[in-house]
């Protein structure tokens, strides 16, 4: 849904407005490219997150394979969501001869600022197949509300 704010609307017709719009669109086009498409900057801290929202909830999905659900520590402070834990998949047994070692292990912690206020006491987390889904209901104050038109 496109949101049009008052500030975005032009009060008078600027002869250069179309050129400015083109420049803005070109800027937006070149911003954030480089590297893989779909990946945003700053996405190097484990775990990788996908964040999405619908009208009533924010969904945070974290890819944390190899960590049992009971060992993932999720906390909310104000409007900051923190995910911490430790991955122990590396068996520190040196008797094994490794052919390949690609899995990383160690501690991880990541914090994200939530876009809106949430109802902290109603946050739920569910883990399935190495992906932890955190469902955060939005606070009453930010929920969309219907305004009734009275016929007078």
């Amino acid at each position: 849904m496109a949101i049009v704010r008052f500030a975005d609307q032009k009060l008078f017709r600027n002869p250069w407005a179309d050129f400015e719009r083109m420049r803005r669109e070109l800027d937006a086009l070149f911003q954030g490219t480089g590297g893989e498409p779909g990946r945003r900057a700053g996405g190097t801290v484990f775990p990788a997150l996908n964040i999405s929202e619908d009208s009533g909830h924010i969904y945070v999905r974290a890819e944390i394979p190899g960590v049992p659900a009971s060992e993932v520590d999720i906390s909310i402070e104000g409007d900051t969501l923190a995910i911490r834990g430790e991955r122990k998949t590396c068996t520190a047994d040196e008797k094994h001869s490794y052919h390949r070692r690609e899995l990383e292990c160690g501690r991880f912690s990541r914090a994200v600022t939530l876009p809106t206020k949430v109802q902290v006491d109603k946050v739920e987390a569910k883990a399935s197949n190495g992906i932890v889904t955190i469902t955060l209901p939005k606070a009453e104050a930010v929920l969309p509300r219907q305004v009734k038109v009275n016929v007078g």
Partner: protein
Amino acid sequence: MTEKEMQIQQRQEVRQAGEPTKPEKQYVPAVDIFETAEAVNVLAEMPGVAKEGVEIELENETLTIRGVMAPCTCEGEAVLLQEFEPGHYLRKFTVAETIDQEKIQATMADGVLTLVLPKVAPAKPRRIEVRGI
């Protein structure tokens, strides 16, 4: 245990001669492979794949690990940040050791597949004693 912060590993897409017909991504899962006296162990990282979606094949010394992702339940949501894209997983290995196909064991837990490929008995190191007459 290491104290360093973990980093996201950039996942690589499968490069193959024939392109898949569906526009779904196929990734190369990261693996750990280690060998003990009795078996070859493979750990493969496949987040988003359920136990039912894993296919393992061993044919002519080629081990194929395939993971089909569980369908996403994120219909009707607006994306705010996307750092990982769901996809299927595919990786093939050539296993040099003779593997006892009947005794292959696979377990899937928290998105990590653990495969135990026991070696056929003759490949185990055996001490042969030399007896005097």
